[in-house]
């Protein structure tokens, strides 16, 4: 591999990291809100796929991709609220309900998505940040979708809000100790319901990015586990919104490895590189399960780490 090819791969990976990371970022931020409240929603994969379908259908029928994004968020919100409501019932296991919603959400998406596989819907426009360089590869890599910046802004806002607002405090208290929240007169079920619904909304928006920007079409193999990886990523990011952004970028880069190598003609092992994000997630989970700092920062009520 010459230095020129290395440059192309690097640029393609940076561009890919920006493109691929956005859905990870939204799902991870949503899951952070949910997990901070002491509940885990493994079903965000379902929200992501349903969001992708609804966004595509919405954009196709209204002609406005941003309206599609909003509709995707609302679809995710409904699924999240259902999850939140069911999990407040006694004896119901939130992890199992998450698996059920994964299958329910994808089932609904596949059912209603059939007519939208063929037609082409208006996509989200990218912001061209690299035109001034005059280099096609860089220009291509720096076509950034506005949702990417929305995600980063949201991460900063959440980071600030968790630490500095009344809502942030209530959320963290509910997640760390249900007993103290109850003593303060906070309705735990309501906080968790709202947190799960908000998480579902963000996961739906993440799905909209998949179908309306990159890869930019609706089909049934669109997500393949990205929603689930994002849940694992939250554990790796130790429930910190800013670290979620870094982790999402890392995952994006891993996901872009296969296509980047293909762009310089290395197609051998394409399928192997496709597995890179999964393998990376697994190793990250092994590493973070051992880490003492993760154990210190985990919300105390979370069933997944008990």
């Amino acid at each position, binding site marked *: 591999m010459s230095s020129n090819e290395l440059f192309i791969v690097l640029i393609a990976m940076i561009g890919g990291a920006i493109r691929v990371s956005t859905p990870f970022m939204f799902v991870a931020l949503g899951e952070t809100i949910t997990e901070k409240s002491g509940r885990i929603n493994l079903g965000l994969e379902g929200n992501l796929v349903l969001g992708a379908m609804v966004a595509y259908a919405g954009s196709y029928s209204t002609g406005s991709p941003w309206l599609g994004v909003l509709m995707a968020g609302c679809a995710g919100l409904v699924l999240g609220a259902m999850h939140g409501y069911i999990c407040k019932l006694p004896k119901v296991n939130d992890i199992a309900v998450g*698996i*059920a919603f994964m299958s329910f959400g994808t089932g609904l998406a596949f*059912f209603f998505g059939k007519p939208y596989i063929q037609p082409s819907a208006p996509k989200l426009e990218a912001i061209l940040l690299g035109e001034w360089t005059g280099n096609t590869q860089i220009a291509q890599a720096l076509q950034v979708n506005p949702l990417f910046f929305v995600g980063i802004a949201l991460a900063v806002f959440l980071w600030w809000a968790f630490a500095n607002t009344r809502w942030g405090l209530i959320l963290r208290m509910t997640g760390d100790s249900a007993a103290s929240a109850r003593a303060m007169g906070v309705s735990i079920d309501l906080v968790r319901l709202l947190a799960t619904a908000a998480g579902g909304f963000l996961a739906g928006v993440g799905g909209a990015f998949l179908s309306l920007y990159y890869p930019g079409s609706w089909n049934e193999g669109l997500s393949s*586990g990205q929603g689930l990886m994002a849940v694992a990523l939250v554990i790796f990011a130790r429930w910190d919104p800013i670290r979620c952004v870094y982790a999402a970028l890392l995952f994006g880069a891993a996901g872009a490895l296969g296509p980047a190598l293909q762009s310089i003609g290395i197609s051998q092992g394409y399928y192997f590189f496709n597995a890179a994000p999964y393998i990376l997630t697994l190793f990250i989970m092994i590493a973070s399960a051992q880490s003492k700092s993760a154990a210190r920062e985990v919300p105390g009520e979370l069933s997944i780490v008990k």
Partner: protein
Amino acid sequence: MTVVASDVPVARFRLGLGAIHTIEAILIPVGALIASAILFSIFLLILGKSPITFFSLIWTGGFGSAFSIQNTLQRSAPLILTGLAFAIPARIGLTLIGAEGALVLGGFAAAVTAIPLVTGGVTPVIGLPLMAISAMAVGAVWIGLAGWLRHYRGVNETISSLLLSYIAIAIMNFFVEGLLRDPGSANKPSTMPIGDAYRIGPMPGTSVHWGLAAGLVLAVALYILMSRTTFGFAARMTGGNVRAAQAQGLPVGMLVVGCCAIAGLCAGLAGFFEVAAVHGQANASLVAGYGFTGILVAFLARQNPLAVVPVAIMFGALAAAGGLVQRRMGMPDATVLVLQGIIFVVLLTSETFYGRIPFLQARRSGERT
């Protein structure tokens, strides 16, 4: 004294705790199924379709004729095995959702094992068991790995097993699209066909392959293992309370990995039958969602290996009738997925009723009527 007197008439009819558990374990899942059917009917009515047509088509397509019954049984065979693959680790307290990956990798291992055997002209009597063993071994290692990571590294088994599934599918794709691709498979990259001599025929008098028999035998064997042996007792005790099991000196790590390996063995065997009896080679058709439906089967069977069998047959019928519904009602094949999703959500919601059905409660001492 008055309290005692008022208690007397109530005492004439009481169910034992065991009976109450059994009634609950049947009543609540059946109730959940009925509730799901009602919800799905409403869904159909909103779409302007007739629920009566739908359910009668499911009946016709699943059990209406000798052909459809055999089709149903054919499809329920892998579901029994993947249902067991979820149910056994669930008894020890693990939520493992990686059966899909173990099935795919097991099937792939069987197809790869077949290549030297078929080209070397080894007789199927020796070759087929070798294929089955390699499929089971690969499956056992794959799911066992998730159990090992859980116990010795503290990695959440639900997420890791699903990740391992995706990795398994990627491994198969990698080889099937590259190194082990049969040049004859132009449109759908596959491994070398195992050939007619290696194909497992149907069971005598039916068109159903032997996977069904294997599933039934394993279901009974695992039921006995989990409820009548020391291993099963220790596993269930670990599932109930890990710390208590450790305090008793039980080899918890061995039990966890063992249960996971059994699960992988079942899923791998399902993969073997998919290759040796259905597809004749390993390709993307192995990724058919049997592993995921198996999770639902096990939940509905309340992790009881024997109950897995009828539930798997029910979902086999649903899958078998899917095509008929698609053709007659003009509905997409994902209709079955929606119904499964609804059943899944309602079923887990129904968990909340255990121990809370008013007329089934054993009265505790000192409680007034």
